[in-house]
């Protein structure tokens, strides 16, 4: 019998029929190489099977309607929404209409080149015209 390597794992997994199993056992009894391979594979198989069984993350436990948008896509959606909002705010700021002209008396006076005195002696909001080099004449 040739070395039936691929059957060794099948034997360990209970995947051989009675005839195959008997033949392989007969071979193993007289073949040190295959016996050693059986032991090696048995150890590896046991190690893999000893890996801890992980719990399902809580947000993947389905009791009702699930989260149908995959996790990564949800994050992309949030990031995309934030980017869209940022763009809208930027565009709105850039293209916002000029504010309407102020109707305040002080602003109007300043636009005409006057300064507004805050000196109580002149009363609130008295206008002092500005002349030439910026000197103030009362």
């Amino acid at each position, binding site marked *: 019998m040739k070395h039936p*390597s*691929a*059957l*060794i*794992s*099948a034997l360990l*997994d209970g*995947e051989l029929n009675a005839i195959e199993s008997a033949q392989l056992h007969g071979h193993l009894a007289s073949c040190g190489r295959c016996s050693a*391979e059986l032991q*090696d*594979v048995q*150890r*590896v*198989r046991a*190690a*893999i*099977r*000893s*890996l*801890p*069984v*992980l*719990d*399902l*993350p*809580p*947000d*993947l*436990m*389905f009791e*009702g309607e*699930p*989260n*149908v948008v*995959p*996790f*990564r896509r949800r994050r992309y959606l949030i990031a995309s929404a934030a980017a869209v909002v940022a763009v809208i705010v930027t565009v709105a700021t850039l293209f916002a209409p000029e504010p309407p002209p102020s109707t305040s008396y002080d602003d109007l006076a300043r636009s005409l080149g006057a300064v507004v005195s805050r000196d109580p002696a002149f009363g609130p909001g008295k206008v002092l015209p500005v002349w030439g080099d910026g000197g103030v004449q009362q």
Partner: protein
Amino acid sequence: MESIPLTWEEVARVHGRKIYNFAYRLTGNPYDAHDLVQEVLLRVRKGLAEYQPGSFEGWLWRITRNAFLDEVRRRNRRPTTPLPDEVDRWDLASTEPVDVEYARITLGDDIQKALLELPFEFREAVVLCDIVGLSYEEIAQAAAVPIGTVRSRIHRGRKMLRGILE
């Protein structure tokens, strides 16, 4: 005759943990495993209406492997920079405290790393057999290969692992 879950919510409840463990062992991290489970369940929901009675396990795991392979292909087309901090990724994927999750994951760290070094066909066969507990027949249906190929892949996969772990 095999009874199958009637709704995809039942599939999620009955098989969700197994799918997650398969996904984790295949991808090597809970973040990708999380995404893969959701993708699989979406496909199950779409596919259940057209499910033909047969091997439900084979059907389910075929969907799972296809979802995984599609993701691998998608990443190969559009390579992305992995997130730099593994711990943060675990934190994103689970509401459990990071140290608890970390301790659980690192318990079989060497074996997990060795699994990730296997070519996909061998990793898949070994994980479906030793982690999920499928029969060779079910693995053959999932992978759409003859049972002799499954025998060979499982044995060669284990021998490769032995070589990596030595």
